[in-house]
């Protein structure tokens, strides 16, 4: 057992414990935020030091490869951005800052484990570590809306994990093992390819993981939870939690259920089409910007699922890598874009204390830079050059065309046109509407730093995506 392979997760756990203890014994609470953000350097350093290793440990439960290390960095960067954007917001729950930071760190640890485990029990534990931390964070404000969001998220999440477990139990019963490689070997060896029980298990697994990534028909929690949760947590849910869901789906379905890819890829293709259409169409009617971005994130999950569907055209058992690498690249672009949009919203709502789109009227005159940043991120969410969203969409659509999913690409392009309407509406309100007051909207240094990082990332990836593309390809190369 090589504990060094687990060093990023262990150091993150230690950081969370240190934050909890510091909270109990020191008076100046601003230190907590600083310690949490600075402390993230330690797991990040371990991750970079481990870069290039490809080993398993703990009886094959833990795997450290390019894929898990890529996602480790992904989660650490998005956690850092979320924590930066929380420092000012945290004044709303001044007495509970320590718990807040510690829970965010523990959720990040769960996500990192989700991407780097190869065994069903560990996947479940990691999923629940993330889930339970996020349930508590969603209900953190303790006002009626936030508690309601927390309760809805918890009840639906618990049902989803029960369904997931039932699927896991079926897969375990059919194959006699919980290790992903063992499952793959057993499926091929015991002629389970056409087994209806295995298909049932796959459907239940799709349902359980589908909740995490908010695909239809498990998307109904998204708008309510996104609206009620503290805004930094909404950003966290829409980016990191979703990415963790995709990471674990890639792992389980490509590594364990590869031999039956024909069965599940068609499920993902159909779900992708329905998910993006529903998300975009319902988003048009929203008046609350957090709710609108909630539906927008459902639509983006639909685009992402194209990457999961790209195996259907191949021979059974054969899996190409351009779909998964496009998915991973899309996730990184989407993360920067969505985090940027949410950070701008946090900065604006800290001041005007409202999330209604109509209250953003004339914001360009009250906060020119914030409005410009928000506009840039919304343009990237539509997918207009020269932004990251454009490159991500080009890449994932071309992967789908390569694998013969022309119909899915046509649906996605039509959806992109629909989505332009509601994103551009926000930009129109901000730049052409009459300002509701002349008061300026200031923002803190931490928020400005986080927002500049996100916007810079969006522009750089839109103009020069090749470095990240190489990394994304390297990350998924180990899928057989």
């Amino acid at each position, binding site marked *: *057992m090589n504990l060094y392979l687990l060093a990023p997760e262990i150091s993150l*756990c230690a950081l969370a*414990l240190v934050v*909890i*203890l510091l909270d*109990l*014994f020191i008076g100046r609470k601003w230190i907590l935020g600083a310690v949490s953000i600075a402390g993230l350097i330690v797991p990040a350093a371990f991750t970079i030091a481990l870069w290039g290793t490809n080993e398993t440990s703990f009886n094959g439960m833990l795997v450290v490869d390019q894929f898990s290390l890529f996602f480790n960095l992904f989660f650490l960067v998005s956690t850092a951005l979320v924590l930066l954007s929380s420092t000012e917001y945290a004044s709303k729950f001044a007495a509970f800052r320590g718990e807040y930071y510690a829970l965010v760190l523990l959720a990040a640890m769960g996500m990192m484990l989700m991407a780097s485990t190869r065994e069903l029990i560990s996947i479940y534990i990691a999923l629940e570590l993330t889930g339970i931390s996020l349930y508590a964070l969603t209900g953190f404000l303790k006002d009626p809306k936030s508690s309601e969001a927390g309760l809805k998220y918890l009840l639906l999440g618990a049902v989803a994990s029960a369904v997931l477990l039932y699927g896991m139990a079926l897969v375990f019963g059919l194959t006699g093992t919980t290790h992903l490689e063992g499952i793959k070997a057993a499926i091929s060896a015991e002629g389970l390819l056409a087994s209806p029980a295995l298909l049932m298990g796959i459907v239940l697994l799709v349902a359980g993981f589908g909740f995490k990534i908010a695909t239809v028909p498990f998307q109904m929690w998204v708008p309510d939870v996104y609206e009620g949760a503290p805004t930094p947590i909404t950003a966290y849910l829409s980016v990191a939690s979703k990415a963790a869901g995709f990471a674990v789906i890639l792992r389980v379905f490509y590594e364990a259920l590869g031999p039956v890819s024909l069965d599940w890829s068609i499920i993902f293709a159909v779900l992708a089409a329905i998910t993006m259409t529903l998300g975009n169409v319902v988003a048009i009617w929203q008046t609350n910007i957090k709710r609108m971005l909630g539906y927008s994130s459902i639509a983006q999950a639909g685009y992402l699922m194209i990457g999961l569907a790209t195996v259907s055209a191949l021979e059974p058992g054969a899996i190409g890598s351009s779909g998964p690498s496009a998915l991973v690249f899309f996730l990184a672009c989407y993360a920067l874009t969505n985090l940027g949009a949410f950070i701008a919203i946090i900065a604006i709502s800290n001041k005007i204390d409202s999330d209604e789109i109509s209250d953003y009227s004339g914001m360009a005159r009250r906060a020119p830079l914030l409005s410009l940043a928000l506009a840039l991120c919304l343009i990237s969410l539509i997918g207009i050059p020269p932004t990251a969203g454009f490159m991500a969409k080009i890449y994932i659509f071309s992967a789908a065309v390569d694998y013969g999913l022309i119909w899915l690409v046509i649906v996605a392009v039509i959806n992109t046109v629909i989505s332009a309407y509601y994103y551009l509406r926000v930009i129109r309100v901000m730049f052409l509407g009459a300002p509701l007051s002349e008061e300026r909207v200031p923002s803190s240094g931490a928020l400005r730093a986080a927002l500049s990082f996100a916007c810079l990332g969006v522009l750089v990836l839109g103009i020069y995506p090749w470095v990240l593309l190489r990394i994304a390809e390297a990350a998924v190369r180990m899928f057989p």
Partner: protein
Amino acid sequence: MLGNFGYIGIFLISALGFAIFMVLIPPILRRSGIVPKKPNPTKSSTYECGMETVGKSWVQFNFRYYFFALLFVIFDIQVVFLYPWAVAFKQLKLFGLLEMLAFFLILVVGFIYAWRKGVLEWK
């Protein structure tokens, strides 16, 4: 296999018979005149030893009970891990002990947290 269910059937019948028998003893003894009827206030009270209930029994419990119950459940359920660990202790050697200590360290942090936050005090 069916024979095993036979034992369960015998067990069920004898348990049922015993329960009915116990309920029937007092009336039978009374009717047959073995036990005399001499009522007095103490004898006919609900509990011969114990407190009379005051008010309805459908009262809401204090909120505080729930916090204690929640804390208890969390710490109680973690003990589940101790049993398999204890059984396999000799094979696991020092590494198992250290892992369990790490596990406990995390739990202790949670306990210190609850303590300092005053959850354990009855206010």
